[in-house]
C-alpha cells in the first residue's frame, strides 16, 4: 500500500471487512499516512464495481487522491471465500480503464488457486502487486512474499528497510518457503476436503443453534454461525476448549478443539496441514456432542 500510495494525500479503496482494514492496527494510516475508503464487502468477498467506480475521487482540493484498489483472496472474514474469476477479470479491466493499480492481499491465494484448480498467476492477472503468505496454509514458520514489477520490488526493498523488515541470513526461512511451495501446496485440496467433511457433518445434525453453509466453505475455512440467544461465539470457543467428564464418557475421547470467534455471530475453524483426518473425526464427534448440549437448551 505504501508503495502505491507514495504521494501525500493518497487514498486506497478497500473492502470494509478486509484484513488490511480490520486487523492491521490501521497501519496504512498510522505508519503510512494513507486514507482508507471502504467499499461494502458482499458475502462472497467481492464488492460492487459500480460502487467502486462511484467512489473514485476526481480532482478537487477537498479530496484525497485515489491511488489504489485492494482486494483479498481468499477472503478471511467472509469465510475463506474464493473471489470469482469473472469478477476478478472485470475488476482488472475496470481499474485499468480508471488508471488504478490493484493490489491483492493473497495471504491464502494458494487455497484459492487450489479450489479453482488454476495456477495462482491466472488469479492475479489484473493485479499490479500481490502478497502471498508462506506461514499460513503453506506451513512455513514465518514469512510472506510480495511480487510485482522490478521497479516495485526496488521500491518495496526501501519500504521494507524503513519498517525494519530487512533480515540477514534469511535463506533459512526462504528454504522453508521453497519446501512449502514444492511439498505443501499440492496437498491443499486435502484441507478443503476435510472442511467439507466437517461442514457436512454439522448440517447432518440439523441443529438450530449451530449452522453452517457447506457450499459457502470454498477452502480451508469453516464458519459456524451461532444462535445468539443460546450461545455466543466466545462461549462456543470456550466450550470447545474444555472437556467435561460426561462428554468423555459419551464420546470416548478427551479432545480440545481450539477455534476463534470471528464476528458477532460466528466462529472460525481453519484446517491446515498439521490437522489429520483422525483429528477431524474427533472434532466432529466433539462438535456433535456440544451441539446436542446446546440444542438441549433451546
Amino acid at each position, binding site marked *: 500500500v505504501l508503495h502505491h500510495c507514495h504521494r501525500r494525500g493518497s487514498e486506497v479503496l478497500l473492502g470494509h471487512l478486509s484484513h488490511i482494514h480490520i486487523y492491521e492496527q490501521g497501519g496504512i494510516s498510522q505508519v503510512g499516512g494513507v486514507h482508507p475508503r471502504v467499499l461494502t464487502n458482499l458475502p462472497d468477498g467481492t464488492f460492487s464495481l459500480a460502487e467502486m467506480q462511484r467512489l473514485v475521487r476526481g480532482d478537487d482540493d477537498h479530496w484525497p487522491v485515489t491511488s489504489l484498489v485492494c482486494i483479498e483472496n481468499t477472503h478471511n472474514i467472509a469465510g475463506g471465500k474464493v473471489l470469482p474469476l469473472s469478477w476478478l477479470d472485470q475488476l482488472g479491466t475496470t481499474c485499468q480503464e480508471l488508471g488504478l493499480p490493484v493490489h491483492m492481499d493473497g495471504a491464502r491465494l494458494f487455497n484459492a488457486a487450489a479450489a479453482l484448480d488454476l495456477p495462482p498467476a491466472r488469479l492475479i492477472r489484473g493485479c499490479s502487486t500481490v502478497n502471498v503468505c508462506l506461514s499460513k496454509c503453506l506451513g512455513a*514458520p*514465518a*514469512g510472506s512474499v510480495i511480487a510485482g514489477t522490478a521497479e516495485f520490488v526496488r521500491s518495496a526493498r526501501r519500504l521494507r528497510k*524503513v519498517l*525494519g*523488515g530487512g533480515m540477514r541470513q534469511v535463506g533459512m526461512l526462504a528454504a522453508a518457503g521453497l519446501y512449502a511451495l514444492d511439498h505443501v501446496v499440492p496437498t491443499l485440496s486435502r484441507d478443503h476436503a476435510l472442511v467439507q467433511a466437517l461442514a457436512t457433518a454439522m448440517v447432518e445434525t440439523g441443529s438450530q443453534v449451530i449452522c453452517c453453509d457447506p457450499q459457502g466453505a470454498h477452502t480451508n475455512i469453516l464458519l459456524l454461525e451461532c444462535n445468539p440467544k443460546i450461545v455466543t461465539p466466545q462461549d462456543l470457543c470456550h466450550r470447545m476448549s474444555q472437556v467435561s467428564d460426561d462428554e468423555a464418557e459419551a464420546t470416548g475421547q478427551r479432545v480440545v478443539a481450539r477455534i476463534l470467534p470471528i464476528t458477532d455471530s460466528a466462529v472460525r475453524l481453519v484446517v491446515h496441514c498439521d490437522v489429520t483426518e483422525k483429528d477431524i473425526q474427533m472434532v466432529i464427534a466433539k462438535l456433535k456432542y456440544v451441539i446436542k448440549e446446546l440444542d438441549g437448551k433451546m
Partner: protein
Amino acid sequence: MEDDGAKKEVMVTSMKAEYIEHSIEVTHFATSDMEAQGLGMPGLDDAADVPTEMTVSVEEQNPNDGRLEVMELKHSIDKKKKRIRAYSQKFRKEWIQMGEFQGWLSEGSAPDRAYCTVCSKELLAGKSELLKHANGKKHKKRLEEGHINMTVPTDLSSVLDGTAIPHVLQIVDLRSDTVTQPSREMKEAMFDAPVGDDVFSEDPTVKALEEKVARMLEKEAALFVPSGTMANLICVLTHCWGRGSEVIVGDQSHLHLWAQGGIAQVGSVHHRSIRNLPDGTFSLQDLRSLVRGDDPHWPVTTLLGTLCNELNLPLHMDGARLINASVALGTSPARLVQWCDSVSLCLNKGLGAPMGSLVVGTKEFITRALRVRKVLGGGLHQAGMFAAAGIYALDHIAPRLSLDHTNARAIAQSVSEVHSSAITVDLKGVQTNVVLLHCDNIRVNAKKLCQRLASVTDAESEEMGEQIVVMMLPITETTVRLMMHCDVKKDDIKAVIKKLKYIIQEYDNMMYLEYK
C-alpha cells in the same frame, strides 16, 4: 628545428591537456550509495588547486609515427601551496589499435584497468605492465590458440589463470559482522527447538530467549523482533507515544543516519541532533541546552541518548553491539544499561545468529512495544527457530567475542607497523571488533582501497604465491571499515595482514610528484 620545437611545444600542450584530463580528475563522492558511483576514479583534491606549472617526464608513444618518446611536460606551480600529486595511468582506447595490443586488449572494469580478452584477466592499465603481459608465455600461447573472451570482467575474474579455471581463492569477508553464518551446532539448536505461534504468544523458545535477555540486562521484559532497525524504531515509537514528540539523537548515530529517517517517516517523531564527539559520546552541556520546555512552538523532548535522570527524560540505548562494549570494558552488560529505560540488542551481528534483535524494557513498555511491532509487521509465527539461534549465540558465541577484538587489534597493529603515509590507523581507537583505515586521499581513497583489496593482480599472485580477496566497506571518502567476527579464522587473519601489507607497499611505492 624551431618548427619541430614549436610543434613539440604544441604537442606537449595538447598532451599536457590530455595528460591532465586523463590523470587528474575532480571526483565527487557521496558517502551513501557507493555502487551508484560506479567504479573507482583516481582520487585527487579540488581541480582548482591543480598547479599551473610543474615538470613531469612521461614516456609516450607518438600517435603519428608510433615511436616511443620521452616527453617533458611543463606545468607552472602555484607557489603559495605545497602539493603532492600522484597519478595512475588510465586506459587509453588508442592502445587497442597498436601492434602489441591488437586482438586481445580491451577496456577493463575501471578507468585504470585493462582487460586481456584472451587470458580473461584484468590488468593494471600501465603501458609497461601491458607490454609485460603481452610478452608472457601463457598469453602468447593462448593468443595462438585463439582464445577470446570478451565478457567484461568482475573483480574476481582477475584471478582466473590462463586455463580459465579459477584458482582456489581465499576470500575473507570483513565488510560487517552481519555476514556471520549459523554454524552446524547453531543449526542443530534451531532444528531441535520447540516452537509455537508467537503471534498467539505460544512459542516457548521465543519466551525463553526473551526471559534470558531480560535477566541478563536486569530489566523486566524483552521482545524478539526481526531486526535492529525495527528494534530501535519500536523503542522510539513506544517512548514517543504522543503527537509532537521529539528525540535527541547523536548526529552520527545509526538511528539518525542509517534508518531512512524511519522515526520521522513512519512515526512522525522529530529528530533533534546533538553533535557526536569522536569517542561516540556527546557533551552533556549541549544536551541540557537542547531539552525543550513547555511552549507550543516546540515539540516535547521525550527521548535522549545519555544520562538524563536529572532531566527526568527516558533514555534509550541502541545496543546493537552492546555485548562487544561489555566485553571490551570487562563490565556486565547490565551495568552498561543501568540507567537506560530501554535497550535494543542485536543477535545478528557479532553474536552470529542469522537474524533477530531484542527490545528490552519494563513490562509496561514491552506491552506497548508489542503493539508497535504488530503495526510494523514484525510479528513472526514459529519464530522459536530463530530464538533458538539467539540463545545458542548468547551461550556459545558471546563468551568468545574478545577474540574478535584481539584479532582486530592484530590487524590494526600490522598496518600501524608499516608506518605508511598512504594508509594509516589510529591504534588507540581500536576498542572492539572494528578497525578504521584512513586513506591519504592522494594515492588512494576509500573506494579504491576496497576495490584493490577485493581484486588480485598478476604480479601480486606471483609474488605472494597466493590469491587473497579481502572485502571491506568504505564508510567515508577516505575511511575504510573492517569488522572482525566469528567466521574469521586464524588463517584468514594472516591472509588479511599479508594482503594489506602488500597493497600498502604498492601505494607507498606509487609514483608521486613533490614540489615546493
